[in-house]
């Protein structure tokens, strides 16, 4: 059924081999950008999904929780009843932050010895994590001040009540809150998208410009065969890109990779399917390489901005949030950060996988349909 696919594939690889600049175009810009991002990119974010575990269940502990609620900066998504629930909330991404009030909180607070409050943050997005930790600190000190004022009216001269906030050690989560850990995985997705969309749309438009496309269409080849033949090489190049940038991140920047490489591979494959589809779709709207370039230029930035790479989707207006659902990069960033830093598997990421597969199938399907027409 795909007899002529081989013809296109052989031709593509011959052309690639013949191109002395291929290695510079395909590898060096990518590696350079990763290094630039790794060293140069840093900044900061908010609105935090929070899980609360109150093991003390005292007046004081409830008062502290109400302080968190009062700021409206924390959305409490789960009042957990045991530690394992909190861990699950963080792993699944349901919560970004967890506040654990240990038993004896009220007693230690009153004695002035320092009441223990444990905070766990999902450090995969170090911006969110840093900001929310800052809020925690603010709220806790306000709580301390109020408690101290209350205590002094009752019993003058006693030690002021204090809360000792401890950041829970979660090594697989980016406990050091390094921006770099957050950025590099994101860079993998972003650069791969730019690379693959560009390569694909340019390659097809070039065949149109040179006139080989018309020649191929008068042969008995079917559009599906041609499209597969054109995209398969870029699929492989895209996978190589992902591998390259991942290796750079792990070996050069020492980003921990705690997840399953195969989950990453599946995710990357579905992501590439969607990006190839996007590139092809763009090519069916372009007659010349300049048009393809303009179209790419027009789309790449919004895709980047609406991906959650840098700006949190939760902070965007509702309409833009909806737009992000059409963005394959949005899903892949979640997958790649989760695989890198959390090590979660398919069971937690199936929605993202499904979304990328759906986008890929729809865009590839549209390209095949539009492809024939676009010759006219």
């Amino acid at each position, binding site marked *: 059924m795909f007899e002529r696919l081989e013809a296109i594939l052989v031709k593509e690889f011959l052309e690639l081999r013949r191109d002395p600049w291929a290695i510079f175009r395909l590898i060096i810009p990518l590696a350079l950008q990763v290094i630039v991002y790794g060293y140069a990119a840093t900044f900061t974010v908010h609105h935090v999904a929070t899980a609360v575990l109150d093991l003390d269940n005292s007046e004081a502990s409830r008062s502290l929780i109400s302080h968190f609620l009062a700021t409206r900066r924390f959305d409490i998504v789960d009042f957990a009843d045991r530690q394992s629930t909190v861990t699950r909330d963080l792993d699944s991404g349901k919560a970004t932050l967890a506040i654990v009030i240990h038993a004896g909180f009220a007693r230690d607070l009153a004695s002035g010895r320092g009441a223990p409050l444990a905070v766990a943050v999902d450090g995969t997005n170090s911006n969110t994590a840093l900001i929310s930790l800052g809020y925690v600190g603010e709220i806790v000190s306000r709580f301390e001040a109020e408690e101290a004022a209350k205590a002094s009216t009752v019993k003058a001269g006693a030690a002021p009540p204090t809360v000792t906030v401890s950041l829970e050690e979660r090594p697989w989560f980016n406990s050091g809150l390094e921006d770099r850990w957050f950025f590099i995985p994101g860079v993998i997705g972003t650069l791969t998208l730019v690379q693959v969309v560009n390569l694909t749309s340019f390659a097809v438009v070039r065949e149109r410009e040179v006139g080989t496309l018309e*020649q191929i269409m008068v042969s008995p080849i079917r559009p599906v065969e041609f499209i597969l033949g054109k995209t398969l090489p870029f699929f492989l190049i895209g996978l190589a890109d992902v591998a390259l940038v991942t290796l750079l991140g792990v070996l050069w920047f020492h980003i921990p990779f705690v997840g399953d490489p195969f989950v990453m591979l599946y995710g990357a494959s579905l992501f590439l399917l969607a990006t190839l589809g996007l590139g092809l779709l763009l090519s069916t709207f372009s007659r010349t390489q300049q048009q393809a370039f303009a179209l790419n230029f027009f789309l790449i930035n919004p895709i980047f901005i609406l991906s959650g790479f840098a700006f949190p989707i939760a902070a965007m207006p509702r309409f833009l949030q909806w737009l992000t659902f059409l963005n394959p990069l949005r899903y892949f960033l979640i997958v790649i950060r989760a695989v890198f830093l959390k090590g979660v598997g398919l069971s937690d990421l199936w929605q993202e996988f499904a979304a990328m597969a759906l986008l890929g199938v729809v865009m590839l399907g549209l390209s095949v349909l539009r492809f024939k027409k676009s010759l006219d």
Partner: protein
Amino acid sequence: MNREMTGESGEFAVRAEGLCRRFGALQAVRDLSFAVARGEIFGFVGPDGAGKTTIMRMLAGVLLPDKGEIFLEGIDVVAEPERAKPILSYMPQRFGLYEDLTVAENIFFYGELFELPWRVRRARARQLLQAAGLLSFERRLAGQLSGGMKQKLGLVCALLHTPKVLLLDEPTTGVDPLSRRDFWAILYNLRESGVTILFSTAYMDEAERCSRLALMHEGEIRLCDSPARLKAAMPGALLEVVSADPRAAHKALTGAPGVLGLLLMGDRVHVRVDNALRRKGELEARLLGEGVGPAAIQPIEPGIEDVFVALLGQEGAA
């Protein structure tokens, strides 16, 4: 459809009926009908914009007509373009070669597209390359060939799968005379083996090589016949005026009695007159009288261009 348009044979390799195609406001082809017998070399001749490329692309099944029917060897191209593809070959003005692949690799690729068995492809490629004079260039990159060689390589690629119908859109535009000669030698050979060839050209001299011609203008066929019959049908007779100053001669003869038409052809002027014998002396005298100087005037056989101009006026000249 009149008799001239249908050719001699009752069996047609290509038959088109009532073809129309419009691009926006431009009616590129209007109500076109013709039939080409098997083994004919059929030429569409006309200036740029006459609709030649549009016809070729519709015949090749890559452009849908707005109206009309096309049959290639009995296959309905409009309804089933895929069925026609294995038996036809279409060479656009610029054949789509991969310039970063070698001659041999381009041939390999186009052979693969038509799923030719390896042995067949090898033998056929050798034979075609030989005929095109490209055998020693097999390992050269297509991008480094001359214009004429590229076009011949295109023809080789187009002929690999032994098509029954060959469609050539201005195949020799920008091709050097030597390559053009090779090109036509290959086409004549093909005709011997029963291949039907349709081609378009803006070169009038090339038009003389076909068995039948369709003179095209503004999307319509104005005349369709063999070159000899077209020439015979030209009203009047032709005189050739060779003068030191052909422009002045052209000007001096404009409006002279008995002159039906004038065509400046480089260093000479073709003058169509009602009676060659009677007018020859008159024209010589007129040129002397107008101060153009002595000129050699003699009757000649008309070329296709003369026929075309006689038919359409100056606007028809390429």
